[in-house]
């Protein structure tokens, strides 16, 4: 395992992308950073700009208004980049799957590496999902491997 991959696994900076969610998943994401769960001990911290981030935590159905912005934010992120879909809406659309305004779910628009279902998912589930994502990184990830599948 190269130094870069090791470092990436130990220091994941997440960017919080809310694309038309009801705010419940966003609150649960913030819960993970509170003293009770403290994700900073794994090196995970929340950053304000997508240029600094390694992982996008995406919540919400992607509605038509959000669609170009989601694509642009994904393109602005430096490689290697990963996306985690948090919540049922982000994974499959949930109860909004047949809504007139639905352009998502996320994996129709940008490549998604991990899905965390739940409405909203518990902080334990989010941590579990992130841990599985980190484990799946083992040596597989190189700079050019992340596929550029943007529709």
């Amino acid at each position, binding site marked *: 395992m190269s*130094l*870069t991959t*090791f*470092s*990436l696994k*130990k*220091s994941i900076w997440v960017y919080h992308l809310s694309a038309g969610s009801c705010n419940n998943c966003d609150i649960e994401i913030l819960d993970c950073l509170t*003293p009770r769960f*403290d994700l*900073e*001990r*794994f*090196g995970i911290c929340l*950053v*304000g*700009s997508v*240029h*600094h981030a*390694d992982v996008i935590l995406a919540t919400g159905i992607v509605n038509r208004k959000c669609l170009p912005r989601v694509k642009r934010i994904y393109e*602005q992120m*430096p*490689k*290697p980049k990963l996306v985690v879909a948090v919540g049922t809406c982000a994974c499959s659309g949930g109860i909004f799957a047949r809504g007139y305004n639905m352009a998502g779910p996320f994996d129709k628009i940008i490549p998604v590496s991990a899905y965390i279902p739940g409405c909203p998912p518990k902080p334990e589930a989010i941590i579990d999902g992130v841990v599985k994502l980190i484990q799946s990184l083992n040596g597989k990830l190189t*700079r050019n491997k992340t596929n550029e599948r943007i529709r």
Partner: protein
Amino acid sequence: MREILFVLLSFLIFPGFLFTAVVGLLAGWVDRKVTARIQWRVGPPWYQNFVDFFKLMGKETILPSGAQKISFLLSPLIGLIGITLTSFILWEMNLYPVRSFIGDLIVILCLSIFPSLALIIGGSASGNLFASLGVSRETKLMLAYELPFVIAVFTPIVAIRDIRIGSVLTYQMNNGMMFTHHLSSFIALIVAFFCMQAKLAFVPFDIPEAEQEIMGGPLIEYSGPPLAMFKLTKAMMLFALPVLLITVFGGGMRFDGIQALFSIVKYLIILILIILVKNTNPRLRIDQALRFFWLRMFPLAIVGFIMALIGI
């Protein structure tokens, strides 16, 4: 030839770049760990900042389309070189007080402005709205803290009537620490401490980089290695500026016998004080910060300076 090689090695490795970077990143970890303990969390492991640095070195660099490319990419280097030189000269003076030259403190003060200048140049070159907001705040903050800082650091020099760091150190070696010895230096230490907090851009003076309102300010467009350099510069400042304060006010960093332990304890005390101030205060607005520095700290610094002039 050997002389040049030796200077180059000491610039790159021992008192210079590598040493400052490693200790600075460790100090950054102390900052994060103590912050976590204050907030009743566990906090990251000791290698966290090194890992962050290497990860950022391995990421892609994105050039914004509206950016001035050369100054955008060169400004992190300017800051890094400035803070490396600051730390290098400071440690040379501490290790060999004889090598001190007239006006070395002025050189150090000038070089320690470089990281802020680099932020200003890089932020305005990136062509982002939030970055330009951060740059304007950084410029105002610099105008606010630089003057009291310079006056405060010059107070001990005036007190002993000699402008070399070497003579300040020898004076303190013979008479004990400056801030316990002279009341004027004690006042100046208080002023310089708050100015250092602003120079480090820590809460309550993290107005230019306010993560929650302008998303990192001047750093918003940076990614990959340039961002890593800015983070490294900040970590090195966290080491070099307290050492500057210890050199001028607190007896200097010495490494003979029990003094070595004492030096480390002095550094840790200042570091913990910085972290405590950082964690117990909310962020000020820029006008509040200006008022604090111009109307509170500046008169205090002047009072200390006049006391030093008449010899208290």
